[in-house]
């Protein structure tokens, strides 16, 4: 008995340390954001007179509504199309009899470990040539491409995990491949599809490198890119910087807390597959 008590204490201690380590930077940001602007507070100091209007100032300084609109437009441009394309290709490759399908699949897999840094210079000139530089399309189109390796890999695995008898039965019934897809298999991979949607959303919302390289005006970029802009403009005013960063991160946090179960599941599955 004594051992289990001490073992339990150890575990709780470890958890506590992990959680303090995790929460501390965010806590420091919150307490700093509530201090008086123009002062030089310490990292962690209780705000005796919390200055809530700092958040209003930060909201205006960051032009938050414009940011939110832009981020939302980018997500709408990327996520539905990326999910659709991944699902179609995943189904096609999982059920295909095409000779050389493994070559196509291998081509996608090649991109799984590809760092985006390896593409940014040519992408810049390519998009410039297309006249899309500094528009939201300059983010939407490359992100669509960059998401394909994981999306195709993920959806192909989902379709392959379905029992083979399903397609045999449907084939005997004379189902076309579209019917097989739409009526039989798509409903069964919806859980994988929703996890994929969450991951794509997160990766689009948090994409940083492409925004820095391809977008000039922060109002055409996303929230992550806006953080760099805000830091550049208000880096010396640490109170406003913390307030602004929190506001810019608020939508991610809000959506995460609303869908935390789905997020945790998606991130865990996304890693394991």
């Amino acid at each position, binding site marked *: 008995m004594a051992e289990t008590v001490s073992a339990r204490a150890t575990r709780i201690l*470890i958890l506590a340390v992990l959680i303090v380590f995790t929460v501390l930077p965010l806590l420091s940001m919150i307490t700093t954001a509530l201090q008086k602007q123009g002062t030089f507070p310490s990292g962690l100091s209780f705000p005796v007179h919390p200055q809530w209007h700092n958040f209003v100032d930060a909201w205006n300084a960051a032009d938050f509504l414009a940011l939110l609109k832009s981020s939302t437009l980018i997500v709408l441009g990327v996520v539905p199309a990326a999910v659709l394309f991944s699902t179609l290709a995943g189904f096609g490759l999982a059920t295909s009899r095409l*000779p050389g399908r493994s070559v196509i699949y291998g081509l996608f897999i090649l991109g799984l470990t590809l760092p985006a840094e390896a593409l940014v210079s040519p992408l810049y000139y390519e998009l410039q040539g297309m006249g899309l530089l500094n528009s939201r399309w300059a983010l939407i189109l490359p992100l669509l491409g960059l998401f394909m390796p994981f999306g195709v890999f993920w959806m192909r695995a989902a379709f392959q995990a379905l029992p083979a008898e399903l397609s045999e039965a449907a084939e005997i019934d004379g189902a076309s491949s579209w019917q097989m897809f739409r009526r039989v298999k798509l409903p069964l991979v919806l859980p994988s599809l929703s996890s994929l949607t969450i991951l794509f959303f997160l990766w689009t919302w948090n994409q940083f490198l492409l925004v820095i390289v391809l977008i000039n005006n922060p109002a055409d970029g996303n929230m992550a890119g806006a953080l760099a802009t805000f830091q550049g403009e208000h880096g010396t005013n640490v109170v406003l910087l913390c307030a602004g960063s929190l506001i810019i991160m608020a939508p991610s946090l809000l959506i*995460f807390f609303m869908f935390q179960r789905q997020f945790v599941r998606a991130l865990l599955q996304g890693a394991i597959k």
Partner: protein
Amino acid sequence: MTSSNTRVSSTATPTAEPRTRIRRRRLSHRRTGWSTLLWVLPALTVYGVFVLYPLVQTINYSFYKWDGIGAATPDGFANYQNVFTQSALYVSILNSFVLIVFFTVIPVTLGLVSAVLMRELKGRGAGTLVRTLLFLPEVIPLAGAAIAWTWMYSPNGVINQALRAVGLTSDQHAWLGDFSTALPAVGIIGTWVVTGFCTVLLLVGIAKIDQSLFEAARLDGAGRWAEFRAITLPELRRELVVCVTVTIIAALASFDVVYISTQGGPGYSTMVPGLEIYQLTFIKQQVGQASALAVVLVALVLIIVVPIQRLGRER
């Protein structure tokens, strides 16, 4: 495509009944085969135009000297030679190897130790809350994590405050501004981002291990260490491979955190390949040099990650 079609139509003349049936069957197979292309086409198009084509271009650029505006002149392997001989370039690669310690070694070890020690900690409600909290760093933009930690490390920040509180130091050390502490400081930001994720992933993995294995080991009189080596570690192989792969790629291809916290400085002490590629292309206008570094980065990631993946599949 055309050749197979003509072959089928020329041989499938109506002769014997069973033969046509076979032909027709094969024809329908072939049709489903080629229709794969239709299913794959949208994905392949965006992937080809915005990933494969730029990738080929990167390789192409890497053999030229090009400022991004004027004419490019062929330069052989000079750009690659520079990557391995100019300290400004290879230092970025060495730094990214150091980051692996902070992005991979420490988080995976910490995650493994905590997961093993927490194995029997049950209680669903607390579990969900803990998971949610530990996942926070994984969900917020890396740039946000970097801003929070830049503030942590600043002379007035929490780190110095804590050290003063326990009497370890009285000065206001600028952790990110000092040549000797900047790289580990940047690394710890990575540790912060991935530790929670690794811990939860390994916890979930441990929960999936058949409990009877542990009971059997205990009956055999196995100690904790033996149990860990014989059961936990091999059973967690898949999860470990995932943690290691994901975090090594994050270390080698890091950009966001360094861009926000140090811009590679002071000097080149926190320069990483990703940031160097960016600066070479868009600030120093050495597109060819940037591309050669990019190709080396891609190769490095593959050389390191592919064997680890193999390890996960074996046995």
